[in-house]
C-alpha cells in the first residue's frame, strides 16, 4: 500500500514537473541563483581562510637572548621550546644572522639603521625564531617564556617582543573581523536567497491552488496532495545543484587571474580550493536547497488545503 502510494506520488510529481515545464525551469533558475550566492560566500570564506593560514605560517617572532645565555644554553632552550605542543618550529639564530634580520626588518626606519651603523660591534647576542601552529597561541607562549626559568636568558621585554605582540594581536583581530564579516555576509545572502526561493515556490503553488481544492473535493488526503509538491521541491534542488556545480568550475577558472591579481602571493587555485572542499560546498547547497524548497512547498500548500 505504501509503495503503491509512494509510486503514485512520484508519478504525480513527475507529471507536474513536466506539464508545468516553464514554471519548473523558472523555479530551478531562481534556486540556482540563490545557491550561487551561497556558494560564492562559501568559496570566499575558504579563500580568506587560506590567506590567513598563509599569513600565519609566514609570521615568525624573534626573541633576543640576554648576555647570560651562551650558545649551549640557547640549544637547551630550543629543545625545551620544541616540547611545547603549540610550537611548530624553533630555531637559534646566531648574532650575525640576528643583526642581518634586524637590519632587514627595520630598513624603512633610517634612525634605527643609523644608530646601528654608529655602533662598531654587533649588539646582538643571538635570538630565537618562533613559529606556531595557531596564531592565537602566540600570546600564551610568550607568557610561558616570561617565566623565571626562561626569563634570565631571554630579553622578552624589549621592543621586539612588543612589535611581535602587536603584530600577532593585529592579525588575530583581523582574522576574527574577517570571519565575523564573512558570517554576517553569508547569513545575509542566505536570508535573501531563502526569501527569493520561498516567494518563487509560493507563486508556483498559487497556480495550483484550484487543483489542490479539487483534489480535496474528490477525497484526496492532505498528505497525498502535499507529497508530490515536496518531491518536486527535492527534484528542483538536485537539478539546481547539478547544473550549478557544472557552471561553478568554469566560472572559478575564469575568475582566477583577477583573484591572483588581488591576493598576489597569498592567492591559490580556486578550482583546487573548490575540489578540496567539494563535499562541504555540495553538502551546504543540498541542505539549503532542500530545506528551503521543501519548507516553502509545505507552507504554500498548507494554505490551500483548508477546503
Amino acid at each position, binding site marked *: 500500500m505504501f509503495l503503491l502510494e509512494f509510486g503514485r506520488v512520484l508519478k504525480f510529481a513527475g507529471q507536474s514537473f513536466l506539464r508545468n515545464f516553464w514554471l519548473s525551469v523558472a523555479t530551478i533558475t531562481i534556486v540556482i541563483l540563490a545557491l550561487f550566492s551561497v556558494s560564492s560566500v562559501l568559496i570566499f570564506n575558504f579563500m580568506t581562510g587560506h590567506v590567513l593560514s598563509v599569513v600565519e605560517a609566514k609570521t615568525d617572532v624573534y626573541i633576543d637572548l640576554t648576555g647570560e645565555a651562551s650558545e649551549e644554553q640557547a640549544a637547551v632552550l630550543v629543545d625545551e621550546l620544541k616540547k611545547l605542543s603549540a610550537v611548530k618550529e624553533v630555531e637559534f639564530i646566531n648574532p650575525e644572522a640576528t643583526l642581518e634580520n634586524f637590519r632587514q626588518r627595520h630598513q624603512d626606519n633610517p634612525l634605527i639603521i643609523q644608530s646601528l651603523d654608529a655602533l662598531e660591534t654587533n649588539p646582538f647576542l643571538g635570538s630565537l625564531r618562533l613559529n606556531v601552529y595557531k596564531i592565537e597561541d602566540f600570546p600564551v607562549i610568550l607568557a610561558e617564556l616570561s617565566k623565571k626559568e626562561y626569563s634570565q636568558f631571554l630579553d622578552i621585554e624589549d621592543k621586539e617582543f612588543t612589535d611581535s605582540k602587536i603584530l600577532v594581536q593585529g592579525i588575530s583581530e583581523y582574522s576574527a573581523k574577517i570571519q565575523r564579516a564573512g558570517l554576517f555576509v553569508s547569513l545575509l545572502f542566505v536570508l535573501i536567497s531563502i526569501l527569493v526561493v520561498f516567494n518563487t515556490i509560493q507563486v508556483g503553488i498559487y497556480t495550483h491552488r484550484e487543483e489542490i481544492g479539487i483534489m*480535496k*473535493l*474528490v477525497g484526496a488526503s492532505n498528505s*497525498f496532495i502535499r507529497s508530490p509538491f515536496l518531491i518536486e521541491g527535492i527534484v528542483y534542488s538536485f537539478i539546481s545543484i547539478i547544473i550549478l556545480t557544472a557552471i561553478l568550475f568554469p566560472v572559478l577558472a575564469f575568475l582566477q587571474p583577477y583573484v591572483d591579481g588581488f591576493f598576489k602571493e597569498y592567492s591559490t587555485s580556486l578550482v583546487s580550493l573548490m575540489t578540496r572542499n567539494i563535499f562541504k560546498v555540495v553538502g551546504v547547497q543540498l541542505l539549503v536547497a532542500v530545506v528551503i524548497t521543501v519548507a516553502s512547498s509545505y507552507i504554500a500548500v498548507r494554505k490551500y488545503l483548508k477546503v
Partner: protein
Amino acid sequence: MIKFHQVSKYYKPDTVALNKVSLEIKPGEFVSIVGQSGTGKTTVIRLLIAEEKPSEGRIMIGGWDITDIKEREVPYLRRQIGVVFQDFKLLKKKTVFENVAFALETCGAPSGKIEHIVPQVIKIVGLEGKEGRYPYQLSGGEQQRVVIARSLVHKPKLLVADEPTGNLDSINAREIIDLLKKINDLGTTVILVTHDRDVVNSLKRRVITLDQGEIISDQSKGRYVL
C-alpha cells in the same frame, strides 16, 4: 440515507444560510432542491461533503453522524459521495482518463482495478475515444460528463449535483439530466440542486423548495413552485 435534524448554518455577522432545516432522503430517491439564489441550496451541498460544519443541528449520512466530522475523516466521506459541480472542477493538467482515475488513485486502488473501472465509466457517460484529451479540448457538456464519470468510479450510494446544467446549453443540459436519471435508475441516490424550472418540471420526482434558508415545500412528485 440522509437525515438533517434542525440544521442551521449562520455566517458572520448576521447571515442565516439555513434555519432549522429538517429533512430525510431515502436510498434510491431522486430529489431536486430548488430555490432562488442565496436561499441555502449550495449550503446543503457544502454541509453534505463536509466543506462546512453546521452551526446547529445534526447531519447523518448512511448512519454516519458527520456533524462534528474530524479533518482526517473528510477524505473518506468524500470518497463515498459523488459530487458534480456547475464549474466542473476538473484537473486541467490531467487527461480525461487521468481525471477519472485520480479519484481512485487517491484511495489507493490497485492499478489493475483502475484500468478495469475507468474505461467502463467513461463508456457509461459516452466519452469513449476521448480518454487522452485534456479538459480544454472538450465541450462544456463533455467536461460535465467527465465530472460525472469521476463521481461514479467509487460506485457511490449518493450522487450530489450542484447546478450541473448551469453552464450548458439546453441540449447538453437535457443529456446530463438523462444521465443522472440513468444513474438513479441503477440504484444511486441523486440530489440535484438547481433553479432550472424546465428540468425540475420534466423530472416529475421529489422536489424540496427552499426560501430564505427554510423549507417551504416538500412534494413527492413536485413542480418548480417559485
